[in-house]
């Protein structure tokens, strides 16, 4: 699993010295194999394989062919009262128009060192963290996060998922169009949950607890691999 730098400050050319860093995971073929993903699934598509999850999610939200197929595959969930049987055209067009605004908010948050504000802890979590989060004072720790954005009709269905490693360091693990209330109810969000948990356990098993340990792990391990090869 590759940890790809997305927004690095102060110097994008030196991610190993990042003072503030947003990274994204690029899953490799063997990661998908380990997660038990179907070989015909989109994850193995050469268009997306090996690219980081921020780039993949961006590409999907701008891809009418993918969105058309997504609508058809999830028609039974979208042609419901909750979604007011949203039409295919409305679904696809609203989706492609949603990304530019979020991208603007995201880059602005990166530049202002407040990516923290875009994300909330995933799920109901424990009450103490929820209360602290409401005051924007949640503790900086390995925490699974979600960021909501965009509109289809009056719903806010787009999610970017990340792990907060430190107050100044985030790792994006994926993104999805959330069309059901519980993540486990739809295949795409169920996969996002799996990706979050896989990355989280990888971080824990590597002993990563903050930005420094993450940067040490990624760059020192890579240097060692370069020497070995």
């Amino acid at each position, binding site marked *: *699993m*590759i*940890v*790809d*730098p*997305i927004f690095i400050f102060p110097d*994008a050319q030196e*991610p190993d010295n990042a003072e503030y860093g947003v990274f994204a995971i*690029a899953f*490799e073929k*063997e990661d998908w194999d380990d997660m038990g993903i179907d070989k015909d699934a989109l994850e193995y598509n050469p*268009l997306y394989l090996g690219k980081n999850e921020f*780039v993949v999610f*961006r*590409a999907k939200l*701008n*891809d*009418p*062919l*993918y969105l*058309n197929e997504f609508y058809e595959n999830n028609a039974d969930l979208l042609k419901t009262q909750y979604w007011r049987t949203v039409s*295919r*055209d409305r679904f*696809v*067009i609203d989706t*492609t*128009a949603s*990304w*530019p*605004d979020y*991208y*603007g908010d995201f*880059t602005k948050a990166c530049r202002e060192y407040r990516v923290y504000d875009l994300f909330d802890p995933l799920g109901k979590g424990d009450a103490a963290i929820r209360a602290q989060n409401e005051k924007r004072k949640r503790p900086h720790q390995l925490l699974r996060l979600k960021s909501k954005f965009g509109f289809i009709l009056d719903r806010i269905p787009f999610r970017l998922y990340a792990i907060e490693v430190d107050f100044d360091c985030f790792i994006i693990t994926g993104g999805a169009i959330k069309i059901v209330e519980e993540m486990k109810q739809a295949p795409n969000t169920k996969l996002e949950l799996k990706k979050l948990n896989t990355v989280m356990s*990888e*971080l824990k098993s*590597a002993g*990563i607890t903050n930005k420094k340990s993450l940067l040490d*792990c*990624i*760059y020192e*391990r*890579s240097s060692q*691999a370069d020497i070995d090869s």
Partner: protein
Amino acid sequence: MKGLHKQTSTPKKDMMSWMKEDEVAKGRKEEIRATTKIILHLIDYMERHQMSQTDLARELGVTPQYINKLLHGQDKSFRIETAIEYGEKLGVKLVEIPEPEEWYDLVFSIGFHSSCIVRRELVNIMDYAVPCFKSNVLHSNQKQKWTQESQLVIA
């Protein structure tokens, strides 16, 4: 390679190019909506005629690679005049601009089944949406009647 590691060669050039694209995209949301609608028309056309991307490429006189790029929303320089040209080649209208009469039909059909307040709102929307509405002699009486009715209700 197992575990966490860095990209051996970071595609910085790719990243810079999509960042620039997204910066530009913020100012052209309506264009994105229009282009998406046109691509959906093309997808529907392919499904109706049971065509592959290669078949469509042949009919339009372009490469299959280009059609793939277009349908996946990756041709950021796609223009309306190209869509009109493609529509002519396929014998379909890929770009549709609603006629003012269609707007009137819509407003009339809603107006007859709505309250005066809704009608007044529709008149306001029409004044913004279709500038020629005000000067349209055929419908000016109807508009005046609706406005008067609405004022009575509000009063």
